[in-house]
């Protein structure tokens, strides 16, 4: 733990773990990627002035549209929303910070470095040219010009980004369920925080599916597995490695993520709109309860609509009908939300401040986006709109309407974040120019909808509409110069504002200074009386004696999940555990120690991860440069993880807080549970992919054609017993810790470790044998790249083995700590490790029959 330098010092921004600082970092970085993605859009809008590739060239055009989509969807819009979430959510719910501040910093640095890696891909020959939807098999190196290292970098950058998102989701969920002010029920949290809560729930599961898709794709790129392979080898197909389900597998994985992603992007914007409508109309949200219920319904249903992106892929009529119904179903709650916002204005005192103008504009744009979306819900129309500018125009009207609301949010919270008021006149001018530019850019696309997506040679008679769009793009892009100027100059010259610059704002962020102090609130916020109060330490003590046990779990030191390398996600878990092991030992009761706000390790871990991934992007070329980058990055990342685990870091939990429905689940345990939930989706997606490919190939023929005789059940069976026994040993360790038997803890943890190592050795022997068999069917062994079956076998069980290795690192670490007498009478860290280890065990119980018996 280091001390936090002042904001004027550059060091502060590398060290900080404070949610408000990180919120600012997110906002600034996201705006940078807005400019990056926006300039790419400018480039191809200029290309589209004439119907020919006379500016960027064919490949350049494809790269520009693909990276524009990826940057805007991943690196701009969600991180922009999460800049606000970081800054505002803890303030709105009455928390001092997020539950795991270092984890939060780590999320940010992973995000930033993933973006840098994305930027580097432009300089590795050609970046990813296959569209933001990355359809297979065009996303494999076989179909890319040159060495395709840039494309690999993009895939790895996305993995890193997903790692950041997953850590963020775990963090926000834990925070919102464990750190709300007293008396603030889940349904009472302000609309913006509520929208973020639902967003992170969707993120937790949707991004896990994307992570599976990306890990598989990067393995196809780097290791040479054949999940998405479909290519001509000379004149004939290399049938053993061609996956006849390649395109469909990707489409399912991608859209299972991709549709919830639409709401992940839009929900925070809805939250901002609800806040701004309430504040600037001076009215409470009409039908608030139903608004919330609608959002919950959408969040749930978002996972069962994905096949509407695949209506033309030959899925049968029954499934089409089902997905048509769920799609229409999911549009209806939005009708309610729109009307709720409209009716909120009635009897209001509407003040046209810039945040309200952007919110109102966003609502109007979203209405148009929604109506044109109903067209797509009619399957017969969808068939014809598929792959055209109708879709482009529709989703820009929806997604950029979301961005519009978020820009409103920027003006809304700017005075809170800076303590200065922006220039209202320039804000209004920005809105006017923005709104005109937006419609001039996207509306002509509806008129020119017959243009196929991602082509540069559109029909000549549509030239005028495309030119209007280009003019609109320049106006829309130019409007941001006004915004940047306004916000920059106002930071130095704007009028000072008090706590609450906006009349009728109600939520707690307006009850503290602008900008708020480091630890947010002077007293402990509480809504127990029905309105916001700040309790003094003596009040808190009084309450605590009333609520026995409410504070019993206060003050566990923070844990430090982190990631590096290919097992990014699993790595995060690993360090959670490791740090947990250290952290819980040094736990202090609330208030006896000052909370920590600085750590250098999140930055270092992310830097290590970045170098490692950059190295991995080119490691298949065998180049010394890339190999050494990977090595250095791996060592730096791992070393920093250990450093973070060793670092004492204190993140107190509030003494009294509203914790429904997880009052009895400690912070660490809740974090672990939410993390494991996403891990289950990851493995589920891997298992699903295996079943999908095998089914596409022919379930029975698979076994006959692709798997050697030497692949027998026995090693798997032995490993099943080893893992089951090791899980049992963890339970024994817990019992021994409870009984305060040091020898018992050491023996049980030692047994867990030994059994896990046995598992890996056995697996190693098995793999070595299979790699080197010489049979008629497999003259060169059964290696990872040999065929589809070997690809799925090695990659899926390899992912599991990576989980085992991470578990062993933690078990080994805990063994050494138990040597020094840790955990006696405090078995919780062992319990948390046990949760993880049991999951790894259970996953194997699925993998064993799937890959050895069936």
């Amino acid at each position, binding site marked *: 733990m280091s001390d936090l330098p002042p904001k004027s010092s550059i060091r502060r921004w590398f060290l900080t773990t404070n949610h408000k600082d990180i919120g600012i970092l997110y906002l600034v970085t996201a705006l940078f990627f807005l400019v990056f993605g926006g300039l790419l859009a400018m480039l191809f809008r200029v290309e589209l002035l004439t119907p020919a590739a006379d500016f960027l060239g064919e490949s350049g055009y494809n790269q520009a549209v693909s990276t524009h989509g990826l940057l805007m969807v991943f690196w701009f819009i969600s991180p922009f929303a999460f800049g606000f979430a970081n800054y505002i959510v803890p303030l709105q719910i009455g928390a001092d910070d997020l539950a795991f501040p270092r984890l939060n910093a780590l999320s940010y640095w992973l995000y930033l470095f993933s973006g840098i890696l994305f930027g580097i891909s432009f300089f590795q020959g050609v970046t990813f040219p296959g569209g933001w939807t990355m*359809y297979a*098999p065009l996303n494999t190196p076989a179909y890319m010009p040159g060495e395709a290292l840039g494309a690999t970098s993009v895939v790895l950058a996305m993995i890193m980004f997903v790692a950041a998102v997953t850590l963020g989701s775990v963090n926000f969920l834990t925070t919102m369920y464990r750190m709300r002010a007293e008396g603030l029920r889940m349904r009472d949290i302000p609309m913006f925080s509520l929208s973020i809560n639902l967003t992170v729930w969707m993120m937790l599961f949707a991004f896990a599916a994307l992570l599976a898709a990306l890990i598989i794709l990067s393995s196809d790129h780097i290791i040479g597995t054949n999940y998405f392979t479909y290519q001509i080898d000379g004149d004939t197909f290399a049938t053993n490695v061609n996956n006849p389900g390649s395109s469909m597998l990707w489409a399912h994985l991608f859209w299972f993520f991709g549709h919830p992603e639409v709401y992940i992007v839009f929900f925070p914007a809805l939250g901002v709109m609800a806040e701004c409508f309430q504040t600037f109309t001076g009215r409470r949200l009409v*039908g608030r309860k139903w608004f919330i219920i609608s959002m919950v319904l959408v969040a749930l249903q978002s996972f069962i609509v994905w096949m509407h992106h695949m209506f033309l892929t*030959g899925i049968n009529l029954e499934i089409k009908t089902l997905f048509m119904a769920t799609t229409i179903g999911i549009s209806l709650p939005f009708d309610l939300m729109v009307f709720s916002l409209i009716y909120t204005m009635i009897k209001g005192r509407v*003040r046209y401040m810039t945040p309200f103008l952007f919110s109102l504009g966003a609502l109007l744009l979203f*209405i148009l986006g929604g109506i044109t979306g109903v067209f797509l819900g009619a399957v*017969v129309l969808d068939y014809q709109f598929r*792959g055209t500018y109708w879709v482009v125009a529709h989703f820009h009207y929806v997604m950029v309407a979301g961005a519009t609301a978020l820009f409103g949010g920027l003006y809304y919270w700017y005075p809170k974040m800076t303590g200065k008021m922006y220039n209202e006149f320039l804000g209004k001018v920005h809105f006017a120019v923005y709104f005109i530019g937006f419609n001039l850019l996207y509306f002509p696309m509806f008129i020119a909808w017959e243009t196929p997506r991602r082509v540069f040679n559109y029909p000549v008679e549509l030239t005028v509409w495309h030119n209007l769009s280009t003019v609109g793009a320049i106006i829309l892009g130019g409007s941001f110069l006004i915004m940047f100027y306004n916000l920059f100059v106002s930071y130095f010259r704007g009028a000072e504002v008090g706590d609450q610059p906006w009349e009728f704002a109600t939520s707690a962020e307006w009850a503290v200074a602008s900008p708020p102090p480091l630890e947010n609130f002077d007293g402990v916020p509480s809504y127990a009386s029905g309105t916001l109060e700040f309790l003094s330490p003596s009040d808190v003590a009084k309450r605590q004696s009333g609520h026995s046990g409410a504070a019993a779990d206060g003050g566990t030191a923070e844990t430090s999940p982190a990631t590096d390398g290919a097992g990014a996600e699993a790595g995060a878990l690993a360090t959670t555990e490791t740090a947990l092991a250290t952290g819980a030992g040094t736990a202090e009761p609330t208030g006896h120690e000052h909370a920590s706000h600085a750590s250098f390790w999140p930055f270092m871990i992310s830097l290590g991860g970045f170098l490692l991934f950059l190295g991995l992007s080119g490691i298949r070329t065998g180049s010394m440069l890339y190999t050494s980058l990977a090595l250095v990055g791996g060592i730096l990342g791992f070393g920093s993880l250990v450093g973070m685990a060793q670092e004492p870091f204190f993140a107190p939990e509030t003494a009294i807080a509203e914790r429904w429905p997880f009052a009895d689940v400690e912070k660490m345990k809740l974090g672990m549970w939410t993390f494991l939930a996403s891990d289950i989706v990851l493995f589920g997606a891997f298992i699903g992919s295996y079943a999908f490919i095998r089914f596409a190939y022919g379930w029975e023929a698979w076994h006959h054609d692709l798997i050697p005789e030497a692949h027998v059940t026995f090693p798997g069976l032995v490993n099943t017993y080893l893992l089951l026994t090791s899980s049992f040993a963890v339970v024994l360790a817990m019992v021994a810790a409870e009984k305060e038997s040091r020898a018992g803890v050491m023996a049980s943890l030692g047994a867990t470790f030994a059994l896990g190592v046995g598992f890996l050795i056995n697996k190693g022997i098995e793999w070595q044998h299979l790699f080197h068999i010489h049979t008629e069917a497999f003259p060169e062994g059964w290696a990872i790249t040999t065929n589809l079956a070997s690809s799925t076998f090695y990659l899926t069980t390899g992912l599991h083995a990576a989980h085992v290795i991470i578990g062993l690192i933690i078990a080994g670490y805990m063994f050494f700590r138990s040597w020094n007498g840790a955990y006696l009478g405090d078995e919780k860290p062992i319990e948390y490790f046990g949760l993880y280890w049991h999951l790894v065990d259970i996953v194997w119980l699925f993998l064993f029959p799937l890959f050895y018996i069936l």
Partner: protein
Amino acid sequence: MLRHTVIQNVPIAHAGGVRTPAAVFNEIFTVFLGLGTLVGIVVCAYTVYNAYAYRDTGEESKADADRPELGELPTGGGGGKKLFLSFGISAIIVLSLIVWTYSTLLYIETGPDSQQVQENALEINVEGYQFGWQFEYPNGQTTSGTLRVPQNEMVMLNVTSRDVFHNFGSPELRFKTDAIPGQSTKTWFVGQQAGTYEAKCYELCGTGHSYMNATVEVMPRDDYQQWYNGSESE
């Protein structure tokens, strides 16, 4: 071969009278566009009207007694009935539109009702590749770049790809389906007017995607037959 000579002499079997996918699309699109424009104008106008009507004039109003206050626990504003009424109306509009279009979806999925038309349909295999289209006719002959079909006959396309994901569609004839490696999908159309039409690739498939066009030549039946017969011997 024999099949097609027979058709020429039995006028009832031809598909000149069936509702083409293009006709179906145009009808539904027109209705949606009309209703969508109307609903869009009404809702947007009402939104802007409210924003204007309830602008802050600086005057006290009755509602001012009950403005939100800092630090209050959030509650909903009134107006629930009105909310559900408008929600109900919008739901009815959307649902009835979708139910109405569902029967046409069944039509597009199953093809014309006339059994004869269906049985006489000309089946052509389409294979996409980077960057072009190949067509295989029942007599085994193949063409690239130009799909020739007889006028007023149902044409059934079996579409696949030999490399990456493509999509084969025609903006005028209104057929469209994904061309996916490793599997095939079906779509159908009827060319009721002789002439030259465009077909395009609708899924990004590489550097030549923008140029991946084909022509669809709808030919008078006799001309087609002549070409078809001649082509077989090639």
